[in-house]
């Protein structure tokens, strides 16, 4: 539509400069760019600029007066707590993503098999944890895990079981933050997998059934290959978001006890904002960027390759 409209206007104006401008405006790509410009501006202001600025900050000394190159990173590599945070972030992100994917996959199958009449209700209910702002739902979990007045411990006490130090013991605290992350994030996997399941052609299952495929073989040879791309993208997306998680840990344990639940974002905040060392905080938060970028590149390359093959 835009091409036609602009093309007519172009023939009316004959002057050289204006003609080339009109020719430029005739292009679909120009129109598309102009329409996307507000969004691009927002991204540049709120994503690109802060990202570049944080890169700049990461190269400054503590008082932000001197360029130190990679000095902040070499300093971090010598800190015991930093490696503890790296280890915990990996445990947190990988465990949470694996369980979110598994639970999402299983629940998506359950929901898929519910007759379509009642399916919408279930989909809505199952999405609730993902829809509630995490800071709010984590507050509710905090009350359930409260050191002195835990509702879970109250229930355990009814059965004569000793109270569990949900947020007071390093291992239980790790378990608690991962559990809450899974609770919040599993519905996202569920809805993505459900969409993927619905797009698998029924004929493939029929053909598999005719060939005598078992339930497991149908999953392994039909469902999983058909969902491969969506699984890869969902996992990548969730991995990035989980590595960057802040609110759950901040609200539930604030990184404690003894720093045993800190992840990159919470430790960066502790060091950068609370500790008054903004360049070091910026370095902590940037540490995962190259690793995740490489992972993203491999996963996306694989997806593109499969897309081309198809």
């Amino acid at each position, binding site marked *: 539509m835009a091409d036609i409209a602009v093309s007519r206007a172009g023939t009316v104006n004959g002057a050289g400069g204006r003609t080339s401008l009109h020719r430029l405006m005739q292009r679909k790509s120009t129109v598309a760019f102009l329409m996307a410009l507000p969004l691009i501006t927002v991204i540049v202001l709120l994503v690109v600029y802060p990202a570049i600025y944080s890169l700049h900050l990461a190269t400054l*000394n*503590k*008082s932000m007066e001197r360029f130190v190159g990679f000095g902040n990173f070499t*300093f971090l590599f010598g*800190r*015991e*707590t930093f490696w503890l945070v790296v280890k915990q972030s990996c445990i947190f992100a990988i465990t949470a993503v694996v369980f979110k994917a598994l639970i999402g996959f299983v629940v998506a199958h359950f929901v898929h098999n519910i007759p379509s009449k009642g399916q919408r209700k279930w989909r809505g209910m199952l999405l609730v944890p993902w829809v509630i702002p995490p800071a709010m739902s984590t507050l509710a979990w905090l009350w359930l895990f409260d*050191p*002195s*007045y835990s509702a879970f411990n109250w229930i355990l006490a009814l059965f004569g079981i000793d109270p569990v*130090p*949900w*947020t*007071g013991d390093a291992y239980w*605290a790790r378990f608690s933050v991962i559990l809450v992350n899974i609770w919040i994030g599993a519905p996202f996997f569920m809805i993505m997998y459900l969409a993927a399941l619905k797009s698998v052609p029924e004929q493939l299952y029929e053909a598999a059934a005719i060939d005598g495929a078992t339930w497991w073989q149908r999953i392994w040879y039909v469902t999983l290959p058909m969902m491969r791309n969506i699984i890869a993208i969902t996992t990548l997306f969730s991995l990035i978001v989980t590595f960057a998680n802040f609110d759950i840990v901040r609200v539930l*344990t*604030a*990184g*404690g*006890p*003894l*720093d045993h639940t800190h992840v990159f974002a919470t430790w960066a*905040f*502790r060091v950068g*904002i*609370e*500790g*008054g*060392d*903004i360049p*070091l905080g910026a370095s902590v938060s940037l540490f995962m960027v190259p690793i995740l970028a490489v992972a993203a590149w491999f996963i996306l390359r694989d997806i593109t390759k499969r897309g081309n093959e198809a």
Partner: protein
Amino acid sequence: MTHNVTRRRVTKTALASTALVGMPFVHGARAAGSISVGFWDHWVPGANKATTELVNEWAAKEKVEVKIDYITSQGNKLLLTIAAEAQAKSGHDIIAMATWDPADKADALEPVNDIMDALIKQNGTVNGTVEYLGKQGGKWLAVPATVGSQIKGPCSRIDLMKKHAGIDVQAMYPAGSPPKADDWTYDTFLKAAEACHKAGHSIGIGLGTTSDSVDSVGAIFHGFGADLVDAKGNITVKSDNVRQALDYFKRLVAFLPPDAPAWDDASNNKWLVSGRGAMIMNPPSAWAVAKRDAPQVAEQCWTHGMAKGPKGRFGPFLPFFWGIWNFSKNKAAAKSLVTFLSQPSSVEKMVVASGGYDLPSFSKLTTLPVWANAEPPKGTLYHYANPHDHQTLSIAAAPAPPKIAQQIYRQGVQTKMVVRHFQGESAEKTIAWAASELEGFMRT
């Protein structure tokens, strides 16, 4: 460069000058400009109103338009605002700053020696902690604010301490009189903690990394003279005083609630209000909540001084400050407002509005009637403001240079040391860990 004086230009200038001279002076609401202030959003309902009324009174008198924002410290919003404004060199003219913020943002603050010299002359001296946090190299960075400043001394249950530990806290800290607390030592405190713990009413000291935990533990470290870093920035953690403090805590933590390492700033309040605790370390906000929600607990509460350690009696003190950014566009008005808010009449109004929570930092203002009259029971807050200068007001991690101390404080190094040692790590290993952390804080 040539200046062409034309007839038209002369006429224009003459007309403009006539209009300016002939214009009547309108003394408008903004005659002296405008300022914006970021105050700390008070916990106590109604306390912000008193501040607003004071500011409005000043604004009407000085013909300045004032915009007030009350910024909560919940979720570190105030801290983030300060960081953002310092970075952007734009924002409020006056901003409320907690303990470490003035030193952290020293380069972006307008010196206020003129205000402080006059206020000290008028209201009396400030304690060492205010000076340590608010003054650098002879330069006052900010003015200690009444709003938000607090002492986190013990708030004991009169009945439980008497029944289980045999300690009459009212006799030890009588209302209206100086303390008779010579026997109130760390040994007595430990025995009381054991007795209360055995009776199922443990003393509630948190061992997390939030402010209440760090303050309580830090004050006890001071009582042992257990400084992690000295005033010159030398790491002094490998000392007998630190070993002594760790040993003491190992014995004390056994009598604290088992979940103390997971406590945050709300946990101790809940511990007292629920009736489970014989004592907590907190400003009177916990007592105020009890007054509303559990009156039978509130009428048994008594706020008093800390126990005495081998190196003295130290009470945790957290002053708030009002800082004026050096990029403020109306420094004169900002200074005038801060001075007005620090006048005795303004201070008293704020303290009364906060139910006695807020503390002025000037020595002549610690005996306001509001603390003596607070009830129930009558006189429960008499000793809150340290009226008899009975304890040294201190902040955890001092006397390390503030930029290092801030990190010791925020990272909760002392509470972590206590928990590590209590959980079975040898004192030497804990001290070595702390030394390594402290080395990391020496960055410039």
